[in-house]
């Protein structure tokens, strides 16, 4: 296992965030259940699908359930199939809410909701040029991550496995490369199903994780949100503590090169 990167402060778009657990607001049984889970998660960044809310209406049930004095709102463009649609939605969100942060999602396939790399890059370029702080949702593609970083994205958000599958970090080898090479924060988004997956991502060197389905469809969403909070905090503590190297086997014997030591030993 590679040595874990030392933990730096999490700064996105010039803002320091005090939690490495980001949460989504879809799929909950009610706005109240959602708000309670967000609160229990201790998250500092909450993403909301623009298609689900009436962003122009301050009395929207989802938006008004959340206390935005505690969390930063991260509007997302979920449902957009092209760069053009995503850019239009982001601008709508900025005009209505005042935030220039956007979680860029361009997912032309309505089933697995896998992100379109070409349209995502195109939209990211336009949005950055227009002054947005862009957090793009991507497949775990290290080259795409570099390209998005180059055009000025504030983070990259590779998926662990397809949205909503709860399968954990199936793309672990690619995410490892992204983490190794990134100059912006890496947020593992999508597919994280259990607190252990979230801890694994942070332990590997991810800067943050984003969770939605695993919390929303748990029998007790608030309890699950707290479990994720604790897992992320545990992994952060572990990184701060400086973990020892792990190796596949004990190092007692050297069957192939043992003779070298023996020769040395005999000579001295």
């Amino acid at each position, binding site marked *: 296992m590679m040595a874990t990167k030392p933990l730096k402060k999490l700064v996105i778009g010039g803002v320091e965030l005090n939690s490495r657990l980001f949460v989504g607001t*879809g*799929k*909950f*049984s*009610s*706005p109240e259940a959602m708000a309670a889970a967000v609160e229990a998660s201790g998250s500092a960044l909450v993403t909301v699908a*623009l*298609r*689900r*809310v*009436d962003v122009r209406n301050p009395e929207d049930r989802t938006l008004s359930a959340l206390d935005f004095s505690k969390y930063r709102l991260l509007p997302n463009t979920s*449902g*957009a*199939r092209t760069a053009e*649609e995503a850019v*239009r*939605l982001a601008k*709508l969100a900025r005009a209505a809410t005042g935030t220039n942060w956007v979680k860029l999602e361009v997912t*032309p*396939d*309505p*089933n*697995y909701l896998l992100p379109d790399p070409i349209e995502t890059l195109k939209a990211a370029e336009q949005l950055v040029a227009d002054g947005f702080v862009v957090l793009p949702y991507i497949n775990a593609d290290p080259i795409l991550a570099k390209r998005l970083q180059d055009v000025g994205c504030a983070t990259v958000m590779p998926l662990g496995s397809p949205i*909503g*599958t*709860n399968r954990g970090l199936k793309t672990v080898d690619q995410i490892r490369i992204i983490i190794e090479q990134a100059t912006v924060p890496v947020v593992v988004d999508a597919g994280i199903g259990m607190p252990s997956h979230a801890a694994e991502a942070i332990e590997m060197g991810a800067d943050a994780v984003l969770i939605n*389905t695993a919390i*929303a*469809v748990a029998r007790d969403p608030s309890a699950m949100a707290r479990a994720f909070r604790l897992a992320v905090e545990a992994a952060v503590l572990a990184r701060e503590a400086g973990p020892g190297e792990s190796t596949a086997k004990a190092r007692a014997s050297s069957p192939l090169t043992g003779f070298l030591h023996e020769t040395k030993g005999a000579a001295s």
Partner: protein
Amino acid sequence: MSSFADVMEQTDFAAVRELIASRTASDVEHALAAEQLSADDLAALLSPAAADFIEQMAQRSAALTEQRFGRVVQMYAPLYLSNECVNKCTYCGFSHELKIARKTLSVEEVVREAKLIREEGFRHLLLVSGEDRRFVNIPYLLEVVSEMNKIFDSLAIEIQPLQEDEYRQLVLAGVDGLVIYQELYDPERYRLYHVAGPKRNYRNRLLAIEGGGRAGMRSLGIGTLLGLGDWRTEAWSVGLHGRWLSRHFWQSRLAVSFPRIRDCAGEYTPDLPVGDPEFVQMICAMRLFLPDAELVMSTREPAALRDNLIGLGVTRMSAGSKTNPGGYASQDHEGEQFEIEDGRPPEEIARIIEERGFEAVWKDFDREFVAPRGG
């Protein structure tokens, strides 16, 4: 591109019936354990042998629905534009030869209906009509759509089949969903019920929804009219059709409806009625075969059954529907396509959805995706 019509025309429906009838308990168990279901697995889940596994199917269906869609039910309402129709179909309340009060709403009347529907909370609208191009045509639809864009966030149509370039015009204008029920997938039985008019052309109807897919409709809705054919082979065909559409129009979401025939002006009683246990078996089988499809429940079904289907696989529900043009404003029943069973107001349905631990979602799309909001 080939068409699903080719697939159906090459299907031996008698053999499919036999395949389904011969499935055993172990075939059902195999299907329940499979991660990716084959057409044979679907046959097993629709078979008489699967009746003993209905609880396991429901459990699996509920879990899959929750995982893919979350604890939400999306709400929509139909708005009937016209009951004019050139087709003669033996089961339909709008059938050409029936002496009913015929009406096509003016754009002003559509707006009046739309505002009443919007006041009930709806943000997703389904525009419905009989099939008569003299009344419901592209210029009329474009005018209606431009008004509806000001009121609703999502617009779908369920009207006569159109040409691909006509669908393209409607997509550009702001229509994001297309619904065309094939009614009957067995071509022989199809001809028995569709006696005269353009709808008699089985193949054209299957081709039309593919035109909508090519034109960029984001949602493609299909279904078989239950009561006309052997529900097992029909549901099997719907499943295959759904999978075919999803593969070919990978950017469109699939929606499957399960309309059961009810009393209507033609006083048609279903030849092959589908009972509640079979109905639930079919919905669960469809969820297992098409995990990502929206499964739609209209007010054709009685209140108690609808309530029990929340969370079991259904993801989209209508409420408070009127099935005659102008029915929201006039409150009369003249010229209805069919009588609804669940007449409870939308507010009450939403409350029941919430009591069952789900959120009634009124808005799950935004005008900004397709066209800037007018007005």
